[in-house]
């Protein structure tokens, strides 16, 4: 019974993490920037939703508005920081360090404004139990995150904008010549990725509460899923995120929870040794 509970919990958290991984995949495979600050946006979304719910806004609206604000922030980071650095021909290392700087700023502004400690999310429906030991908010997380993943897949395959993003991702130079305007595309991609990551950010916060520095571990696990799934593959990122989280949850049967980072990391090292290109590599 415990194993079943852990499995189901793993599936729910895994779907939330899957959306984080897919959004990171979208940003990373297009802009080629290892966008560490993504973890900050994930965390920020939870706090934004929390503040709005506290002021009496219904939960769904709070999530949508949080996603919009995060989209604007993501676009701003690309426009004001990453694009500037690229114009100045900054090295890859510099961009990475700047991104880490953004993460530190977001996390600590949150910590200073709210609290460095965990804040429970008091939402009307979060405690409601349903069958299989799931709470309502967990069921909502599962459904919404699967829907977001499906929407992301359809968007990338079918819409003109999705095709444009894939074109820029596969060859920015050629895209520049054919007037696809890579720089503008990067801003759009970062906005979309940030809006996407805000949804699990807010939903998981409603379930588990808010903590300013949690995002780093979440993003680390998501990036491991991205790499293990294969750079460029949205399905790979999502599937591996679910798999890793389920394995992590099941490992609780044998190993205590504090070491779950170790389990994730162990999976990563195995992939690095035996299949460094990932399971679903596209190139």
């Amino acid at each position: 019974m415990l194993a079943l509970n852990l499995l189901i919990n793993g599936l729910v958290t895994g779907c939330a993490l899957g959306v984080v991984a897919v959004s990171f995949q979208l940003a990373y495979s297009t802009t080629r920037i290892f966008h560490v600050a993504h973890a900050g946006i994930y965390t920020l979304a939870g706090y934004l939703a929390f503040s709005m719910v506290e002021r009496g806004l219904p939960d769904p609206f709070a999530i949508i508005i949080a996603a919009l604000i995060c989209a604007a922030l993501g676009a701003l980071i690309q426009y004001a920081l990453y694009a500037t650095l690229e114009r100045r021909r900054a090295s890859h290392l510099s961009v990475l360090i700047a991104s880490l700087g953004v993460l530190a700023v977001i996390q600590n502004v949150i910590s200073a404004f709210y609290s460095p400690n965990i804040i429970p999310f008091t939402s009307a429906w979060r405690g409601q139990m349903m069958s299989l030991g799931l709470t309502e908010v967990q069921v909502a997380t599962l459904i919404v995150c699967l829907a977001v993943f499906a929407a992301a897949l359809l968007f990338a395959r079918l819409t003109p904008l999705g095709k444009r993003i894939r074109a820029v991702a596969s060859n920015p130079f050629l895209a520049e010549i054919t007037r696809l305007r890579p720089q503008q595309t990067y801003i759009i991609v970062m906005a979309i990725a940030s809006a996407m990551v805000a949804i699990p950010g807010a939903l998981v916060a409603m379930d588990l509460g808010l903590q300013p520095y949690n995002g780093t571990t979440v993003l680390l696990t998501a990036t491991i899923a991205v790499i293990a799934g294969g750079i460029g593959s949205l399905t790979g990122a999502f599937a591996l995120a679910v798999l890793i989280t389920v394995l992590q949850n099941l490992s609780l049967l044998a190993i205590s929870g504090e070491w779950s980072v170790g389990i994730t990391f162990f999976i990563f090292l195995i992939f690095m040794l035996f299949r460094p290109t990932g399971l679903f590599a596209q190139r």
Partner: protein
Amino acid sequence: MDFLFSYLTLVAIFIILSLSTNLLVGIVGIFSVSQAAIFGLGAYIVGYCLVNDVMSFLPALAVAALASLVLNVLITLPSLRVSGDYFVVTSFGIQLLATAAFTNLTEITGGASGMPGIPPAEFFGLSFDSGFKNFLLAAIAATIASLWFALLMRAPFGRLLRAIREDELAVAAFGKNVLFAKVRAAAIAGVMAGAAGGLYAVYLSFIDPTTFDLNASVLLLTMVVLGGARTLAGSIVGPLVLLALPQLLTFIDIPTTTAAAVRQGIYGLLLILFMVFRPQGLVGEKL
């Protein structure tokens, strides 16, 4: 006067750490956010050995340096195999794992409440029990590390490392062993960070996991970025300025609960601003 010595002692210890980070990030060009983990390993080994009377200070420091060397080489090895971005994941992972280990191996490290009562350093019949003596010890260590760094930079090995950062393939084409050079640099960086950890443990006589977490790694990176990469002066200016910052912040009236967050936020802001406006730092070369 005591206050000045405590500031200078910390500066000296962080100069060693900055040099270690500079060697990896600035010179070899490996992004690392796990230097604080190595620092912590050194501190905990020396702390554990002295508290439990396993051995005296100098052998403990040697063991700490050796263990840090091995760990740092092991951490850096993936960066030789996989491309840059994958190593970022390794680096973050090691740092989070180290924090988990420091916090949860309660029998050895004392867990989240830390390891108190580490005795002062003692060797050759000398006891480093006052602020001034500790400062001398740290200053001597920092001088040795600085000399080592300066000599390395002038030696053929230093030029080889710079060349690797510029163009790894070209260096390999000249018949140089890139892998071995990187392993050597990582080993030196590990010894420095581990020794700095040992000095930190005997100086403060108390260590806890928050000193060696991801925030500490970000601080080390900020020191290198602010001071400037690849120069000795940069690694001295960085700690001098950034360790004075918490003291300056005490003049502003902010509650102690948010002080740490404000400080870390400023480090982050400095990282962004320096990368955009002055990637060479105050007295360094372009990163």
